[in-house]
């Protein structure tokens, strides 16, 4: 497995139109999207994006359609050319790479999964999965061996001779995932990879991805418009609106401390009990005695904590790290507040 590598996106701007470079300065100086459109007929795609993605983490980029999220992910492997800004990966600026280096970078450092699968319909599952290696010039026997391993790993054993048209959407996206994993690239780009799938299948595929991630430890950039999906799989989440990042942080940050009304409105329908962790809402150790069975893991969810308090008829729980240290305590009221979101945990 390749070592995970990080991604630094710095001051990235994208303007669509006949002469984008001419308007970057105006946008930097604060011209709005509507103004740019009305006065110069250019569309502002992305404005001053700064995201630092840690090696081996899952970074979710979330936004509604038109927010620029698919544009943003396409900058990381430069399927779209930025108007200004830098993307630094392993000390190299992807934006400045000459074509030859860019091709090598795409072959060895990144792999991508697409919303509408984008499989080659005239090729079998096996040949689709092996595509990345084929392009690299890996001998047939070796690329088929690697491809078979990942086809089995994503649960498609026995379908390697099928054509994409013979598979369901969920299975086609497993092929898309296998194709990306076969490359063994340290960066995995997933552009609304699960948005076209039914909810149950989407949940399955999220599980597949999370399980795989424990094994392969890639740096994953995951685009979605589905907040539940974002909260479930993202180590960090960046919220995009009209081409700007309006909030970045962990799932806990976004649910507990929404940056503005737009985000607050977004998170208000989330099942907070299943998202919030005990660690995010616990308070200082009280010193009060608590029975030993009333300990709870900081990673446990608030819903579990409430369940436990109800069963044990307790007014608070002691938050205990796996090594036995006491980290804090969780009063019933704090848990209920966090759960309902009424007062908002402070």
């Amino acid at each position: 497995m390749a070592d995970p590598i990080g991604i630094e996106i710095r001051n990235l701007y994208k303007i669509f139109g006949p002469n984008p470079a001419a308007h970057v300065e105006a946008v930097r100086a604060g011209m709005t999207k509507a103004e740019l459109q009305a006065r110069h007929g250019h569309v502002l795609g992305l404005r001053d994006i700064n995201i630092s993605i840690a090696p081996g983490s899952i970074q979710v980029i979330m936004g509604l359609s038109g927010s620029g999220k698919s544009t943003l992910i396409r900058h990381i492997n430069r399927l779209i050319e930025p108007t200004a800004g830098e993307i630094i990966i392993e000390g190299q600026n992807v934006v400045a790479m000459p074509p030859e280096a860019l091709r090598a970078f795409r072959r060895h450092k990144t792999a991508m999964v697409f919303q509408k699968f984008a499989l080659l319909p005239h090729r079998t599952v096996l040949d689709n999965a092996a595509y990345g290696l084929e392009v690299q010039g890996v001998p047939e026997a070796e690329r088929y061996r690697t491809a078979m391993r990942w086809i089995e790993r994503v649960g498609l054993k026995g379908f390697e001779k099928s054509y994409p048209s013979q598979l369901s959407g969920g299975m086609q996206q497993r092929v898309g995932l296998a194709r990306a994993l076969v490359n063994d690239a340290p960066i995995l780009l997933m552009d609304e990879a699960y948005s076209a799938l039914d909810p149950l299948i989407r949940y399955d595929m999220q599980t597949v991805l999370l399980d795989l991630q424990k094994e392969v430890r890639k740096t994953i950039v995951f685009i979605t418009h589905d907040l539940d999906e974002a909260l479930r799989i993202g180590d960090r989440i960046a919220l995009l609106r009209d081409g700007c990042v309006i909030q970045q942080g962990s799932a806990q940050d976004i649910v507990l401390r929404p940056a503005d009304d737009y985000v607050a409105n977004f998170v208000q329908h989330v099942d907070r009990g299943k998202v919030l962790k005990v660690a995010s809402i616990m308070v200082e150790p009280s010193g009060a005695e608590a029975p030993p069975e009333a300990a709870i893991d900081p990673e446990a969810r608030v819903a579990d904590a409430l369940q436990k308090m109800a069963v044990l008829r307790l007014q608070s729980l002691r938050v205990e790290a796996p090594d036995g240290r006491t980290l804090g305590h969780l009063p019933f009221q704090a848990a209920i507040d966090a759960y309902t979101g009424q007062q908002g945990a402070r």
Partner: protein
Amino acid sequence: MAWLTSFPQLDDGYLRDLKKVIDEGFRNFTRSYGDMIEGFFSPLQTLLIWSERLLLNTPWPIILLVVAGLAWGASRNWRVVIGSVLTLVLIGLFGMWDDTMKTVSMIFAATLLSIVIGLPLGILMSRSDRFQAVLNPILDVMQTMPSFVYLIPVVMLLGIGKVPGLIAVVIYALPPMIRLTNLGIRQVDREVLEAADAFGSSAWQKLIKAELPLALPTIMAGINQTIMMALAMVVIASMIGVQGLGQPVLRAINNQYFTLGVFNGFAIVGIAILFDRISQAWGKRLQKHREVGHG
């Protein structure tokens, strides 16, 4: 009021001079470069003679077997196979075997040439909107200009014979090949091309592994059209010395031999249907896995 009823035209003497200058210029051009141009096209002569000999010298049972094999390979359908063989048997029984083989060899050479020229042009056309804008009107002219008109300079340059005939046929049959290659490549799903790029394909790999295979059913439709248009030119080409089914038709027109005309006409129709069914069946079979269904 005479100027209202008769359209004002350029002076007669001026028009006469203009035509004379162009004609003389072209005649001089022919005199000085005719041999060179003939030399340039001589590989076509070789190709034509080779394909004609191949078809005429092969024993007829083998031709029937090959056609049956092609029909089966392309369609996997017994009705197409039986229909194809029956058509050829009837043509042979009515004494038109040799002429048919000559015509088929001509069509074969014209189609081959059209693919060799049309495919790269179609690919270039799909790459550049500007090239498309330039080429489209030229293709329009090639398709609508009465073939007799461009037969004149071709015959002046190359004389009477197979090669000028082939060139006339190709001029007429080439446009659909170019247009449908262009269309097929432009219609390839953008996301699939993005995927090819994202995995680091070179431009050539993208063309060979994604664009051409996905455009192939449309390109096949282009080849089918090319064959049909080449067949439509058979009689006209016979006027400048191309042998085959066209010549008896021409003789029939000149001498009012009704039956001779009908027989040869039906032979042309017969092989047209044969080519059409085989190439369409193949195109359809190519289509089978090329469209992704979402399920």
